[in-house]
């Protein structure tokens, strides 16, 4: 139960840890990624054609005869979007995914960030409309608690486009999924990153995903599309499957590393708060 007092106390602990680790707000952690106009000095940069003359530091020019411009921190509303995979493939690990989403969302709301949660399967389903402040915690948790797995085929790429169509402002996008999308994840992640979102992937897979305990004659059925196929699984096929899953996850890790996307992989056997603590200790939701 996400609204259980005990669970909320665990979320509070996470929030306190987040404040201590991040020395302020999550927004401060994100500022290093973006430079622009503002009042708080951030850094110098070489002058380039088209730069604002007003930002040239004439003192530096007088001293070194080099044109440099001053950079200031951006000051904008930070919005965190959690894209929670609610396809049928998440059955068995969906509660764990919801706990992770609850932990991250709770910290965001307590840091006064805007938070929105969407479910991804064959379509993008809003689970929590954008909201802000501590008062939104309970609606957020209840919304998560009521979320169910469903849909016939998860389409991450389609959902990414739908998400971008709804929210064109740059934001932090946290994708919680097993990333076992039949159509792949590359296009979706590229699309989100192309539109300047800070994307963070939280991969949740259980042993049923990574190991093959099936043997002999069986009829395989896709949990999402209900496609079936009669096969004979020998140790060779089981090994091939495990290798294929490992390759798939390796491909996800390479894709994230190439794009500077943060990635954390976990299993339901590890408690959600420990996962979030690790994420925070590593410097937040950055690559």
């Amino acid at each position, binding site marked *: 139960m996400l609204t259980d007092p005990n669970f909320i106390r665990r979320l509070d602990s996470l929030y306190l840890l987040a404040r201590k680790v991040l020395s302020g707000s999550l927004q401060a952690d994100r500022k290093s990624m973006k430079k622009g106009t503002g009042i708080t000095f951030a850094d110098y940069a070489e002058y380039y054609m088209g730069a604002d003359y007003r930002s040239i530091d004439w003192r530096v020019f007088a001293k070194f005869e080099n044109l440099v411009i001053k950079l200031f921190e951006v000051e904008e509303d930070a919005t965190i979007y959690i894209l929670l995979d609610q396809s*049928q*493939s998440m059955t068995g690990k969906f509660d764990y995914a919801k706990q992770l989403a609850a932990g991250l969302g709770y910290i965001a709301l307590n840091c006064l960030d805007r938070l929105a949660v969407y479910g991804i399967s064959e379509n993008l389903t809003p689970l929590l409309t954008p909201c802000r402040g501590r008062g939104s915690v309970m609606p957020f948790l209840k919304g998560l608690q009521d979320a169910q797995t469903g849909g016939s085929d998860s389409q991450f790429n389609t959902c990414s486009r739908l998400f971008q169509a709804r929210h064109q402002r740059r934001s932090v996008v946290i994708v919680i999924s*097993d990333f*076992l999308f*039949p159509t792949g994840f590359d296009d979706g992640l590229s699309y989100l990153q192309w539109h300047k979102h800070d994307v963070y992937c939280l991969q949740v897979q259980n042993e*049923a*995903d990574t190991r093959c305990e*099936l*043997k*002999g*004659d*069986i*009829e*395989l*059925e*896709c*949990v*999402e*599309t209900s*496609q*079936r*196929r*009669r*096969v*004979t*699984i*020998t*140790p*060779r*096929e*089981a090994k*091939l*499957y495990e290798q*294929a*899953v490992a390759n*798939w996850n390796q491909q996800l890790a390479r894709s994230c590393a190439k794009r500077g996307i943060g990635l954390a992989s976990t299993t339901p056997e590890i408690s959600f708060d420990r996962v979030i603590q690790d994420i925070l200790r590593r410097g937040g939701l950055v690559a």
Partner: protein
Amino acid sequence: MTFANPIFLWSLLSLIPLAAIYLLKVRPNRKPTTAYFLWQDIFQERRSNSLFQKLRDLFSLLLMMVAFLAVAFALAKPVWQADDQKDLVLVIDNTASMNAIDSLSTRLDLAKKAASEIVESLGGTQRCSIATVSDRVRYISNLTDNPRDLLEAIAKIQPTEIPFRDGALNEFALSETKDTAPSNDETRVQTAAKTTWRTILISDGLVADIPDSLELLQVGGSAGGNVGIVASDIQRLPGKDRASALIQLASSFDAPVEVEIELSVGEPDNVVKIIPTTVQPGINKALVFELENAPQGRWLVKLVTATDALKSDNRAFLVLHPVKPIPIRVAAEERFFYENSVLAFSGAGGLLQLVTTGGQMLVGQGELGIQLGESAPDDFLAFRPAGQSPWWSEVGDEIEVKLPRATDEDHPVIRHIDVTSIPFVGARRVTLSPAAEILVRAEDDTPLIWRMSQAGKSAVVVNLDPLDSNFYFSAWFPVLVYSSATHLAGRTDELKSTWRTGEVATLPGKDNSTSTLTLPGGETTTLENTRNTTMRQTGHYEIQNDAGQWQAACSLLSPRETLIDNQKVQANLKPIRRGWSPVAWLTIAAILFVTCESVLFQRRKVG
């Protein structure tokens, strides 16, 4: 093909539920997967097996159905229609020639293998009996359809060193004669019974007088040639330590063979003579030679040859017996005749020896003046019975004997004598105890010659007056003395230098004596109340009995066994099944099919 238990064919109906079970069973369990697209990639590579995958369940069902069919037919006990289903008697030849090495195994092994194949082909549907033949037919198993009992009986058959005895298979010929000549209802019944069994002799064919009713299954034939000793003897010559030896060889080789004959005395390595010789094909002329300083005791003739198929005929065991005369004391008024009759047989190698005191035997007239006791001689030969004696109870009036009659003409005491030509003058009526063995009677049944034993003593009594009848001058007088003496001493039969295997040896000693026989292998056996024993093992024997300590020897010495070439033997075996029965083949097929199905099942269950 017919079925012994056709009722079991109803078990074929089990195929229907089997098929039903299979059709239900082959539906695989449904398993959900979250990464179906990954599985699709994996199985796309293995599409080449898809046809087999689709038909595999059908294969499995077919295999199980075939296995069920095989089991059902096996339970129905199918038998080949060509077989007449007669009871079988397998007679396995285990004579000495069957020990010949033929195709790296002995002929006996080949025969046992052939017999096993026949038994296996019966499959428990036909009765069979196992017998061996060498000097006679011995049944190893009863008539049974239990293959295991029959195979165990075959396995028990051991090789022997006994040659085939002519007429050993006559019992089959006799039954044939009786059965094929029905003259009344009883014999017709026997004929009908006879047609229900079939006798097969499994042999190398080196046997004689095979009855027509026996079918010969010939084994062997590829053995190499063989050289062996077929006759051997050693006898003492007059003079001290001189002996004469005889050795006869035979060869089944097509060409002459160079061999060496080694003669050793005492221990086998104490070789005293080596004779190189050439053995011609067939039976060779005997080699006869004299030996100087030939000690008495054990002798061994050993044939040394390069290649040989049969080993047991390469040695002949001989004994040069010591001279052991029977000491005889005479107690009669007319000593001259008695003493000369003994002296006539006391020359070189003679069996009688005249002594003046003691002696094993006492010869005389009348009562002989001696009562039975430990100090008395063992045997007596008494003429003209008179007075009181343990050997007769009452002597009456003299009788006139016109036509004496022998009750047992072959008795050792009288077999060399024409009793009708003996004038039984002075014969008297006598009364004998029932234990007396009357050898010659008068026409009124008065005993004329009798033999009697009591208290460990024996006697031959001749009811005539040798003086009145002039029997002293008869040629039969010394013969009667000699025959009686050798018979009473148990020395009637000549002690051979060697007996052939399978031959019945008559040992020295009295008929009712107990002999201890030490066999060549060292085992001892006791012969109670008999002097006859069949010699089965080649080698030297030790004999201990009341007649003293003796040695004997036994050797193969059989031309038929030595000349092992059986190429010209005509086998007359009618077609017979050999090898595994249809039941066995069906059982194996069922196991094979079930195994194949298990493999498929295993793949279905655990991949």
